[in-house]
């Protein structure tokens, strides 16, 4: 097996992670804001429904890629996330890796005879 072999589940996870990281590029956000922004900025193509966002956020926080802090506002405490320095470099790396993987996938799907429009 090639060293560059792509696990489809890992690819899906990578996309989700990259979406979260990209959303946090603009600054601190609550979990639900990340979810809404991903949906809005992708024009509804990517949706993080049913709390799928939280395992991603918590894993990224454990890895030190994002950092959470609690904000005490008017209502109950809310958690805000921001990108760390290593998160920014991870985002750049993920973007390159995803672009490579998706290009391979597209080549495979379109076949050798495909002529770009």
């Amino acid at each position, binding site marked *: 097996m090639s060293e560059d072999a792509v696990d489809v589940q890992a690819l899906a996870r990578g996309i989700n992670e990259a979406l979260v990281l990209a959303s946090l590029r603009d600054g601190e956000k609550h979990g639900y804001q990340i979810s809404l922004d991903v949906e809005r900025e992708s024009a509804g193509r990517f949706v993080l429904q049913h709390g799928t966002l939280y*395992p991603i956020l918590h894993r990224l926080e454990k890895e030190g890629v994002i950092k959470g802090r609690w904000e005490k506002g008017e209502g109950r405490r809310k958690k805000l996330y921001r990108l760390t320095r290593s998160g920014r470099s991870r985002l750049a790396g993920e973007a390159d890796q995803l672009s490579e993987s998706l290009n391979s996938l597209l080549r495979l799907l379109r076949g050798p005879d495909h002529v770009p429009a």
Partner: protein
Amino acid sequence: MFRPESGRPDATLALARVAERVRELHHPVRTRILLELAGDVEALTADLQGMGMPEHEASRQAAERVVPSSAALDALIRLHLPFYRRVSAPVPDSTLRRWERGTLLLVTTLLLGAALFFLGAHGLLVNPSPFLWTVLVLSGGVVALALATSFRLFVLRDHQPGTVGRGLGALLSLSGIAPIVAGVGAVTDLWGLAGALEVAVADPVPVLTAWLIRESVLLTTALLTAVTGGLVWFLLAREAAAIRGGDEEVQQTLGGARLAGVESQPATPALTPKETER
């Protein structure tokens, strides 16, 4: 604003179901997960209402988007499951409990053996007070309870208030009984010494010296047991109080939704194809 107690059962019940599932996680992780979800549900509900959505619909949609489905919750729990639980997962519960009890017994025996060896090596067990054995048994109990309760709180992350409370109560009681037994022993031994001296001992100095050594060993062992047991009790009680505080905060967040009654509620919504997170 999202207020669980103000008649919006969708989000509250969904969060209560999450609360039931994350009970196996340790403090403060489980509290933080629930507060984070509740905070996001509340904020999203407010946002959706701000966009003109009716309150009930806003709450329903917020819960649907924020509250993790069964699969997402599994992933979240796996992520935060304590190390010991993760590595011991393949071992059947009954076997694991036997191993744990065996290890606890072994460690307690080793610690008591080390204490006896230390006393013996320094000649302090040549003519011990009969009360010393009782104090040593109590010390063994304190060590076993301290280990078992610490293991339960910090390794197993089992925070059942009843079990932890009983363990802490017994730990404090044994720690307090040890100096009382030693005090009674010292008085009884003093009574015995007085009787021995009355019988006109030719040279009372060796008798007095032996008594002093015996009593100092008895009292020191009892005091060490009491201080160590008390200190461990204080630390564990503080941790247990923090856990209780977290649980109360969660109860307040969930308002009227009783956790125990949630088990009878319908299961969490089915998975959707978009749930790729595992």
